[in-house]
């Protein structure tokens, strides 16, 4: 009968009206008391004592807590993580970048030529304003010095602000993505967890301490 299809359609939308929503209130959402306690992992008494204002807000359902979409560990974020100690200044990343947006200037190191100290890096700028986050630079890095980051909030008002200078790369908190880093994936590393920061360059690499033989093997025989 004419109209059955329309009624079926109306019923389907009605079913979805009472179904779950699939969007999230990025970057923060308003929660009530229960949600606030769950987020802060606190008992009600503790919550009142430490955050009285938030407690009142949460009673009205207006307490704001951060809300982020779930993010895969391999997510290729916008901030690059770079471990200077691992970097030899070989410029593989700059070479493999399809857009040529990595700028490296080095000078010969005064120290011995072993992994992590063959060249000193003067400039290591990544212009993420033109970057497409393909990750080929990370794939090309032979010493696991460069990693994709896990953050994605680098919006800026000026184009210049989109260039990551070497100082920022040095000082940034390093929570690298596991993209093309199987050793991190095997360790079950999750960059979005609270204590995920990697402080020591030895924790991240595929070769913890290569011997001279290994270096010769890699640099001379393999290539």
């Amino acid at each position: 009968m004419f109209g059955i299809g329309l009624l079926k359609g109306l019923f389907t939308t009605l079913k979805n009206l009472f179904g779950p929503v699939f969007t999230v209130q990025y970057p923060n959402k308003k929660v009530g008391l229960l949600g606030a306690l769950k987020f802060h992992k606190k008992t009600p008494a503790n919550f009142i004592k430490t955050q009285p204002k938030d407690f009142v807000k949460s009673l009205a359902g207006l307490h704001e807590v951060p809300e982020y979409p779930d993010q895969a560990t391999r997510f290729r974020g916008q901030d690059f993580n770079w471990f200077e100690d691992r970097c030899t200044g070989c410029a593989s990343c700059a070479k493999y970048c399809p857009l040529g947006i990595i700028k490296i200037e080095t000078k010969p190191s005064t120290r011995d030529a072993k992994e992590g100290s063959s060249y000193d890096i003067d400039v290591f700028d990544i212009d993420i304003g033109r970057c497409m986050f393909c990750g080929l630079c990370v794939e090309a890095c032979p010493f696991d010095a460069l990693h994709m980051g896990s953050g994605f909030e680098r919006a800026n008002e000026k184009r210049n602000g989109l260039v990551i200078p070497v100082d920022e790369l040095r000082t940034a908190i390093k929570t690298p993505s596991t993209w093309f880093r199987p050793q991190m994936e095997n360790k079950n590393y999750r960059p979005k967890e609270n204590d995920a920061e990697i402080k020591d360059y030895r924790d991240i690499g595929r070769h913890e301490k290569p011997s001279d033989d290994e270096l010769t093997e890699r640099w001379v025989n393999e290539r």
Partner: protein
Amino acid sequence: MGPARDSFLFEIVYCHLSKDPSCDSVRYINFSFIPVELNWLSFSLTAFFWIFAFVNAALISVLMLIWGERRLIGKFQARLGPNRWGPLGLFTPIADAIKVMFKEDVEPTLSDKLIYVLAPILMVVPVFMIFPVIPYGAKSFLTNISVGVVFVLAITSINSLSVLMAGWASGNRFAIIGGIRAVAMLLSYEIPMGISAAGVVIIAGSLSLSEVVEAQIIPNAIFQPLGFLVFLVASTAELNRSPFDITEAESELVAGYMTDYSSMKFGLFYLGEFMATIASSAVIVTFYLSGWRGPSFLPIPGEFWFFAKWIGVIAIFIWFRATFPRLRIDQIMSLAWKGLFELSLINILVIALTMAIWPDPTSTQLLFMTGINWAVFIGSIYIFGKILSPNLTGNKIDKRKVVYGLD
């Protein structure tokens, strides 16, 4: 001053202002200060008060509807809807309004300036005139004009003129197509709308909206489902709402007749449309859902029932919008002329015949008449579905299945 004093709402303000002895009985607190000689002053003040109150109530209800529509459609689409600004995103329409006001007001070079400016005003102003005649409760109405039904139908059809003016004056091809479409569609749907409203009038025996409500012992939606269906569909079309939104037709005509409008002129169109939705829903509640009448055993004032039904009807409009795609112009025209027109005629015929047999029906007779109406409703929808669905579409339709490639 005579007719105005019929109105309970008018009187309650008037009597608290004026020392008129005739309204001692309705004075709750006696702080009236205007002497009887200055009756014209108290009359004007009351009028100003209610104009102010109704205009602002209408505007605020539009803001509420904008929020409600977006929120509800969001939920229909399994997403959150507006949630940033204010609790539950309640202030979003205010932010919208501020944004619209501060936008640059563009007038296209090719536009016909006078008509271009007049069109949005003509869209909004008439709709305000519907609100005073609607009976919100047994006594809560501003004016009970004796030709209320005709008045309401007349006012709701003015906006087709405004749409045509806007489409013409913009000097834009999208706009003129939208405007012409609007006139063709709105004029066509006036007719089934008027005829099905006649069914309501026959039952009530009066053109006054109050008496239309009084007469609905069984709500007209149940008593004459065919008329209700036709009226609902026709008002959806009159309101340019989905699935009849061909005049705006975002995916075809960008924004139809208001493509070239910006700033507050666009805001007025927006306002007018939403206000028309509210007004039309009130009319539907009055005509077909027994207005302020509710279950009499509950001690709840009639105004509550009216507003509850009102919101319900608006929600149905929003539900339609969330579900249906748009019909094509030729399909819309044939639906009006080949479908709704005949259905409304059948409806009025059946109502007239049954009313001729039982001019003053008892409650059992009313139920019997309802049964007849439902039988006619289902039968005619079925038959028209059979006849109409091939004719309606303009192109042949059939039951379609895919076949699968043979290995």
